[in-house]
């Protein structure tokens, strides 16, 4: 029986890891549908930012309530996963509590994990309450309807179920340990599940073994299911927050990259000696589809957990405009998934003829003040402004689609060297009045 269980475990584990890695490979491919861009300067600073922002959660705690409960789940998740290592060893080798040889350290750890499990449970309840009872507005923006909210709810519920299974498993385990059941060595401490043993006192040893096995399997199957759910979900941030902060933009937030292909065109006009005559004329200006974005923009999109701090600090959104930086990130990810799938079905060179502009309207793009509040608010340094700006460039340069006031402004700059219609010769008139 035990061998069958071991065999089953290895098969399930293998299948889960296989599907997980396949999906991760696909996401990696989708991210690199974006343009190549080398980001590997100032490595020590990048490690520091990752340590501070992702590992240290420095931007999460800017909002203290959410920050505090998020740290509970985060610490709980990372530490309790040490126990998953033991579960995997036990599952493969057929042992029980294989790390118990660590003695008192093991006992303290198991007890600590139980306390964490309860804290995670509490945090999940608080998060559900924030969404559905307190109804914090940023969780109820238009882009949160449907899957986005379902996804968030599933994650919280799955986490709660996993924690509950862990505690119940321990409760039954300690009953078996007390009974001196074969295979169930005395190990661990159970400061929380100790109070749950009353639920299972009526059962004999054989039933308890079945219960323990059920909870054990439920817990690990739940974790493996979760592992495979995460890449389809906003929850991918638990992995991608780390690379995403490492690849953070380090230049000043106000610096918008100059397009080199345009520099060459301008040089050809103003000073041909500086221009590279062999550079082919650019095919396209600005961002039409995700393939025109940098791969970092798409990594940003896959890293986004849709918390909406960006949107709740966006001046345009706060005053009722359609623009929501979170929606920009969600649309970018959706588009990467759609195009990725289309390429899977029809080959890498295939393009479905659609674009990011089908998902993001000009009205949204035009409302951005480039104030960078969204970038500042993001707990993992995602940058929606770059995407908005690139798409705006496409609208202006490729489609000449812009408000008439902007067309006028551009005319003025071109003809009068100022955005208003003043004569350039009057520029210094103010000096006569000092």
């Amino acid at each position, binding site marked *: 029986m035990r061998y069958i269980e071991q065999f089953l475990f290895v098969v399930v584990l293998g299948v889960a890891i296989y599907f997980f890695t396949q999906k991760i490979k696909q996401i990696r491919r989708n991210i690199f549908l974006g343009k190549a861009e080398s980001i590997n300067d100032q490595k020590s600073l990048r490690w520091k930012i990752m340590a501070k922002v992702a590992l240290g959660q420095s931007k999460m705690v800017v909002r203290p309530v959410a920050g505090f409960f998020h740290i509970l789940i985060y610490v709980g998740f990372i530490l309790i996963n040490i126990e998953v290592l033991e579960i995997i060893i036990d599952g493969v080798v057929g042992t029980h509590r294989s790390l118990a040889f660590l003695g008192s350290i093991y006992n303290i750890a198991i007890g600590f994990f139980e306390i964490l499990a309860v804290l995670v449970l509490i945090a999940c309840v608080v998060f559900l309450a924030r969404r559905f009872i307190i109804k914090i507005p940023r969780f109820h923006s238009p882009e949160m309807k449907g899957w986005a909210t379902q996804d968030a709810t599933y994650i919280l519920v799955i986490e709660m179920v996993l924690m509950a299974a862990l505690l119940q498993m321990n409760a039954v385990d300690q009953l078996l340990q007390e009974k001196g059941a074969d295979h169930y060595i005395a190990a661990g401490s159970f400061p929380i599940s100790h109070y749950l043993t009353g639920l299972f006192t009526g059962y004999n040893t054989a039933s308890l073994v079945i219960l323990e096995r059920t909870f054990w399997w439920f817990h690990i199957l739940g974790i493996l299911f979760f592992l495979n759910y995460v890449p389809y979900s906003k929850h991918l941030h638990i992995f991608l927050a780390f690379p995403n902060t490492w690849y953070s933009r380090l230049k*000043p*937030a*106000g*610096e*918008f990259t*100059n*397009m080199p292909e*345009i*520099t060459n065109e*301008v040089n050809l*006009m*103003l000073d041909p000696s500086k221009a590279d005559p062999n550079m082919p004329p650019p095919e396209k200006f*600005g961002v039409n589809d995700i393939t025109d974005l940098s791969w970092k923009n798409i990594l940003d999109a896959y890293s986004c957990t849709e918390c909406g701090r960006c949107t709740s*600090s966006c*001046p*345009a959104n*706060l*005053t*009722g*405009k*359609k*623009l929501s930086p979170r929606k920009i990130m969600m649309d970018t990810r959706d588009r990467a998934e759609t195009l990725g799938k289309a390429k899977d079905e029809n080959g890498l060179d295939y393009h479905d003829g659609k674009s990011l502009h089908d998902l993001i309207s000009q*009205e949204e793009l*035009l*409302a*951005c*003040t*480039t*104030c*960078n*509040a969204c*970038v*500042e608010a993001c707990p993992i340094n995602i940058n929606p402004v770059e995407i908005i*700006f690139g798409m705006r*460039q496409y*609208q*202006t*340069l490729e489609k000449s689609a*812009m*408000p008439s*006031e*902007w067309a006028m*402004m*551009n005319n003025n*700059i*071109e003809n009068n*060297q*100022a*955005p*208003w219609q*003043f004569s*350039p*010769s*009057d*520029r*210094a008139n*103010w*000096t006569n*009045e*000092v």
Partner: protein
Amino acid sequence: MDERSIIAQAIMSKKIHVPTVAELLAQGEKPDILFWVGCAGSFDERAQKVTKAFVKILHHVGLKYAILGTEETCTGDPAKRAGNEFLFQMQAMANIATLNAYEITKIVTTCPHCFNTIKNEYPSLGGSYDVIHHTQLLQNLIDEGRLTFGKDPFNGRKITYHDSCYLGRANGVYDAPRKILEALDAELIEMKRCRKNGLCCGAGGAQMFKDAEQGKKEINIERSEEAISTGAQIISANCPFCTTMIRDGVKHAQKENEVEVLDLAELVAKAKDL
């Protein structure tokens, strides 16, 4: 000499001559620092007051500065933010050619948009200068003891400060403006959304030059209400566009008789009675 001509002479003698770089060059000289006035500072009536206040301060401390005069043109910032990279680079290259021809090394500007563009976006196009915002220059002058103030020049009037996006979040300058207010012995009341969390006035990203998209409120009204709610009698700012936007917001709230919107250069000039 009769009384009237004495007064006229006094007024004349107070008149400041603002030198251009070309003028200095003709005399075989170069400015230590170029004052980049910007389009708003040159043409906009409200922003001109800031320009004049700043020039008075420069004169008062005796800095050797000059302007480009009619050789200055738009940095291209609004064109770039509106997506017209082509026009931006045309403007940038023309300005860089002028600046480099005059061998300019140091630039001060009263506009955070000009500041950001010249400081961050000109270098890769061939224009590298030491660029500072006027609040940074004022802070330096205060630190060096070249600008000193009497006790409480604003008679205990409460002041709040609005961080412009392009000086604050875009370039991380939060302290220089506040140190000026400190030196002015003013009681600074911060808004809830300040420093890194400062709320935009609504003008950035070329919004100044078009109507806002449909919504339930104008951004400048949201920000002005926040500033007014601090109870401050003066809203200080560092950007010609913010000043315009917030002044409009204060008018909208019908508070223009109680609340003044002033650039930090204007506050300094007032405190020095310039």
